[in-house]
């Protein structure tokens, strides 16, 4: 039972972090950033030296953890901000569909760039190998990594909450997420807030890359995609623009996935995702504005 709880929490953590990364950008820009998954993949590959050999040449991955973690977070933030400056800045006034397709095209560019440098073969990396040891807690034997994932996610969530609540930048960001043009009329600098949101979102992508990378031990071009999809769904059913909702929905999706895997009979288990998506449709039908509708969010016409 305890084990199931931990399983649900650790999977939910990944989805929640992903959903946050998407919700942050959506909040300030109304952009559903499909390139987010590719930023995650990029962060993992940044640890390797570009080569198309089957054997991965570990490069930054060899750094001690206290350098490795900031390195990956910076990679994510850097790439994300770069995307904003080079591409998304030009699309501030575009309609959501155009922005979505643009972000998809950008993700496509990043993915094929990685493919060219590293080839399509998934590469193995041993990231923070000490974390793969099992530990015993309350009678349940858990991978240490699972525990660290949960703790790290909680720490990130608390840190982010403090940042958003206690700093001026956080305040500006929350205001901008709720009503961007009003915030600007009060002197909030659009570029700064949007770049901040991209940087945070990119750093979150880096965090996911670290967790996911050490959990799977693999760097794969496609690796961001599945998390990105779930995160995207979590963002919507959580209530677009609501950060709290995104986190909640992320954990719920993780829990739904794990619980269904446990409860369903073996023949129905391959259909697990169909049930999860069915539940998503149900949630949307009953709460089209999401679980936690961002209060006061104005539909921009």
């Amino acid at each position, binding site marked *: 039972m305890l084990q199931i709880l931990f399983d649900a929490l650790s*999977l939910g953590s990944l989805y929640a972090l992903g959903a946050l990364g998407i919700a942050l950008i959506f909040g300030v820009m109304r952009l559903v950033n499909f390139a987010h998954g590719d930023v995650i993949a990029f962060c993992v590959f940044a640890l390797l030296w570009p080569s198309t050999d089957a054997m991965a040449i570990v490069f930054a991955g060899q750094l001690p953890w206290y350098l490795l973690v900031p390195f990956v977070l910076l990679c994510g933030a850097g790439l994300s901000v770069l995307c904003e400056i080079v591409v998304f800045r030009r699309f501030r006034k575009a309609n959501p569909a155009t922005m979505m397709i643009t972000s998809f095209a950008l993700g496509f560019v990043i993915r094929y760039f990685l493919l060219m440098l590293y080839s399509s073969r998934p590469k193995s990396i041993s990231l923070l190998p000490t974390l793969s040891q099992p530990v015993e807690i309350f009678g349940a034997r858990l991978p240490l990594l699972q525990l660290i994932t949960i703790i790290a996610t909680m720490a990130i969530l608390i840190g982010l909450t403090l940042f958003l609540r206690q700093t001026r930048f956080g305040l500006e960001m929350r205001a901008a997420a709720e009503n961007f043009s009003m915030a600007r009329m009060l002197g909030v600098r659009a570029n700064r807030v949007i770049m901040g949101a991209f940087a945070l979102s990119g750093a979150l992508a880096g965090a996911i890359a670290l967790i996911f990378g050490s959990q799977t031990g693999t760097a794969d071009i496609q690796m961001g995609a599945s998390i990105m999809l779930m995160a995207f769904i979590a963002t919507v059913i959580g209530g677009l623009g609501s950060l709290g909702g995104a986190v909640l929905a992320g954990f719920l999706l993780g829990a739904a996935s794990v619980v269904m895997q446990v409860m369903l009979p073996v023949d129905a288990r391959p259909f697990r995702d169909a049930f999860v998506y069915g539940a998503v449709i149900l949630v949307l039908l009953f709460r089209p504005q999401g679980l936690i509708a961002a209060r006061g969010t104005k539909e921009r016409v």
Partner: protein
Amino acid sequence: MAYKMRIAMTALAVLSVAYPALADDDKIVVGFATAESGFMEAYDKPAQEAAMIRIQEINAAGGLLGKQIEVVKADTKSDRAEGAKAGLSVLDGGADLVVVSCDYDFGSPAALAAEDAGQVSFFLCAESIKAGIQGVGPHSFSASVLAPVQGATMAEWAFKEKGAKDFYRLLDTWTVYNKGICDGFDWMMPKLEAQGAKLVGEDTFKNEDASIAAQITRIKSLPKEPDAIMLCTMMPGAVSAIKQLRAAGINSMILNGSGVDGSYWLSAVPDLSNFFVPVQGSIYGDDPSVDVNKFNATYKEKTGADPSSQYVYPGYVMIDVWAKAVERAGTTKADAVVAELEKMKDEPTLFGTRTFTPELHHQNKARYLIVETKAGKPGVVGNWTISEPVPMEALLK
């Protein structure tokens, strides 16, 4: 509008020049409709390199039927629709043999194009029964061994040689290949159960699942850790699954298909032990056959790297058996070559024997070397040939 149309047409007209249609009977042409870019490239390229090595050997020894073998290539871009185009384009290039992608799904559009044109097609290393008569037609073959043979081999070997009694089956539903391994395992299990083995549980996951924690919890809730886990999966999800199994403290034997062969990923699971893979030949320099080790050296010399996994070898086998059949038929005419291929019974090759029949253009029984990874070091620990061939019913499941 008219202007745009003109541009489009000019572009199209120019493009059509890029596909010259030539057919020349003085030459023997092998056409590769394989992935040179995209997802499948990593799988097709090594086998294709091996095929090229065999072609060069043949050419160096005077060619086939006294003619040099020429090669034409078209990129499938790891895309099915592009695959069909690539197949047609090597056929237009005069291919007598159409070599298609490693995977049935990606290779079949090109193979079907070859079948339409009445030409022989060979899958580089597809391990599904469909890669042949059943899924393409009477002129199609695969150079590798069926996936169910791998599952069956591992089950029987673990039971007979390692004394494993309690088996657990963990299937990744992502691909037919994965399902094939487990199908072979499922066919073998009742025979072993009659002798005292037991299937203590089963579960599924998806290759791209971020975490298989729930599946692991199910294994851990068993009264006793199973002796062996039959893990029917492939890259990249395999690494993640193996890592998570070991991280959770499950130390059972892990039995696999050939898809996880290779040492390139072992760094992800430091000190991995009790881990077993069936292979057609060893890339680790300890193959019992001297010729295999010699081939590995040649491969390194030509490509600058050691073979990354056993999937290099079927490419070599493919050209080898096809060339023999052409030699025996005295022609590259498809029907004659197919007839010769179907006469092959336990035909020796560098990497085990090959048998083709008018019912099956694939191997339903093969000798496999078993590679054990112990403390992160893989090495051959034995070989096994299943007691009877996997029957058609189990293959077509």
